[in-house]
């Protein structure tokens, strides 16, 4: 179909990803714009409700030479997960028992890969990130614990996992809340001395990891710098400023800012 034209100032779109100069049908949007928005929202919704394929993830990690352990939060399903963030931060009892078996003498770093709000992001970016990270970790000569993969996970589930495995540092790879422009963004949250009650201000975050954002390769450089600095300074959080060249790492929220 041809439909209503865009506004004559469509060229201004060169300078912003915002949906400008959309055109109009009377007071309303052109059909094409209604449907294009609907498609973006549909993708975001599918990403939120997608189920993380734990078996596929485990087998991909195995190809990298990594042993993985499955875990679940106390949130039994997606609806509970969305309504009860507190349950998504706690390990269920079976998972706790399973992790205890792998504890041994503890380790320097544990990686938790959790679905968060976008299993799509994890499926697309977690393995490429781990693949790029492993050679960098070898240089740091860290004792790496088992990789934990978890469904219905919130960031703070990493604290429980870190405690169960006796880790000095936990890195949580987790799917971000999907936006309309990208439904496959992954974040990493790094926490030194994980324990229950850690706040976001005590973590470092690298966000927008995806092919068209911060690439998994660049994120790996960034993350290994943060891991090394955290081990040296024995902390993470707002005090640990990312000075690696790759890209910025930010703490999630600026208190009191709009929205």
């Amino acid at each position, binding site marked *: 179909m041809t439909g209503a034209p865009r506004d*004559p100032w469509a060229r201004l779109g060169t300078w*912003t990803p*915002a949906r400008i100069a959309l055109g*109009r049908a009377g007071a309303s949007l052109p059909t094409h714009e209604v449907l294009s928005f609907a498609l973006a929202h549909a993708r975001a919704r599918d*990403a939120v409700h997608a189920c993380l394929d734990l078996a596929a993830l485990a087998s991909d990690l195995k190809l990298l030479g990594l042993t993985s352990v499955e875990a679940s939060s106390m949130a039994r399903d997606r609806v509970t997960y969305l309504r009860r963030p507190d349950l998504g931060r706690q390990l269920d009892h079976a998972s706790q028992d399973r992790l205890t078996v792998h504890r041994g003498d503890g380790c320097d770093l544990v990686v938790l890969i959790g679905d968060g*709000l976008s299993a799509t992001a994890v499926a697309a970016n977690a393995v490429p990130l781990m693949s790029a990270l492993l050679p960098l970790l070898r240089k740091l000569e860290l004792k790496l614990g088992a990789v934990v993969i978890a469904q219905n996970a919130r960031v703070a589930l990493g604290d429980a996992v870190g405690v169960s495995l006796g880790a000095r540092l936990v890195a949580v790879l987790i799917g971000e809340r999907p936006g309309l422009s990208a439904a496959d963004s992954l974040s990493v949250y790094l926490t030194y001395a994980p324990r229950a009650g850690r706040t976001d201000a005590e973590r470092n975050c690298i966000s927008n990891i995806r092919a068209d954002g911060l690439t998994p390769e660049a994120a790996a450089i960034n993350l290994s710098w943060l891991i090394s600095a955290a081990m040296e300074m024995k902390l993470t959080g707002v005090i640990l400023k990312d000075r690696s060249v790759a890209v910025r790492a930010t703490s999630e929220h*600026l208190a009191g800012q*709009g929205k």
Partner: protein
Amino acid sequence: MAYSQSVGNTRYSFPTLKSLLAKASPPRAGDRLAGVAAATAEENVAAKLALADVPLSGILAEPLIPYEDDAVTRLIIDSHDARAFEQISSMTVGEFREFLLSHDTDAKVLTGLAQAITPEMAAAVCKLMRNQDLILAARKCHVTTAFRNTIGLPGTMAVRLQPNHPTDDVAGIVASIADGLMYGCGDAVIGINPATDQPARIEELLRLLDNFIQRYATPTQGCVLCHVSTTLDLMAAGIPVDLVFQSIGGTEATNRSFGSTLDMLREASDAAQSLKRGTIGQNVMYFETGQGSALSADAHFGIDQQTCEARAYAVARAFDPLLVNSVVGFIGPEYLYDGKEILRAALEDHFCGKLMGLPMGIDVCYTNHAEADQDDMDVVLAALAASGVTYIMGVPGADDVMLGYQSTSFHDAMFVREAFGLGRAPEFEKWLAEMRITDPSGRLLPPAGGHRLIEDAIPVGAP
């Protein structure tokens, strides 16, 4: 004090006013998450029945947080207009609902009562009202404010132009401002959410807005929605600030979690007033609120989220703001789960704000993990337009590319104007016609190339 209600053979007890209010609240995710919601649907209605018989004077006599422990509680009690309250002091909450809906209770009566109505009274009566009651009562409240234009006149609805950009790129922000103005939006404020709180970047954006507004003599105001402490420093350094922004909440501890206090807000309000940048009015504050912020900050004291929200309006009204809006669906499904809960909260927040005398707007919005979509927002928007909402947001294509959520668009504003026959702030309406953006009836002229706003928005040196 303890309250109780018998329903059939069951006797329900509510140990405090706080628990009675919480259990009488229409169901929502945040109250369940906090563990304060009614356990059953029947208990919810039993609480409403008990609440209907509570006298307003009883609500005044039982602070939800002790006076000594909370600055917001002290503000509520110390600023209460006891004289105006005499007119309604003998009413129960149930009678108060009927009073608000009575044909004899008009805008003048409600304006005279605003300072006599505490947040807890507003919240209590709100819980007994159906959505249609909230619409009818709110549309009777008239609240007008002014800075460079007049906001809130009957028959008008303003729009905040929200030209956010993921990296605060100036050319990108200007492109969205030009687009929004060409769609007739921006009379409430041109308000940018910055991607960072770095003072140097905020200053750059403030100068951008100041230059833009001066260049076209646009009768509107600019705002960069950074932390109040940042704005205070910038004002001290002589940077042009029209409006001071701050997110606020309904308890002292919530505000502390935002890094702000009533004293800071007072200082900032005084500083902005002294700049005398408003041409026709001196309302200089812009506040955002939203149900769930107190719970999110673990600062709710067991108070339900709608009552906490109404308490934030007591903070807002102490500073005679130009604009206040609840960001109703932004916080996520753990507080407001779906379109139904967002609709209810939007009508509640608008009603309570208006009843308490605020120029209340609503950011009609949702995130992608909430059970909501554009159809839900259309219903919320239409219900708010029927309620006489003071302003809404205008985001290009409803998609905020910096904050990652969906709000209302320039097109949505046109929909409201068409469907409800609502105009803009009159000074802004006149300017749009002079700029040949609208025709004399206020409707957009057909889009034409070569408009000055568009030509000027193309960065210098661009091919």
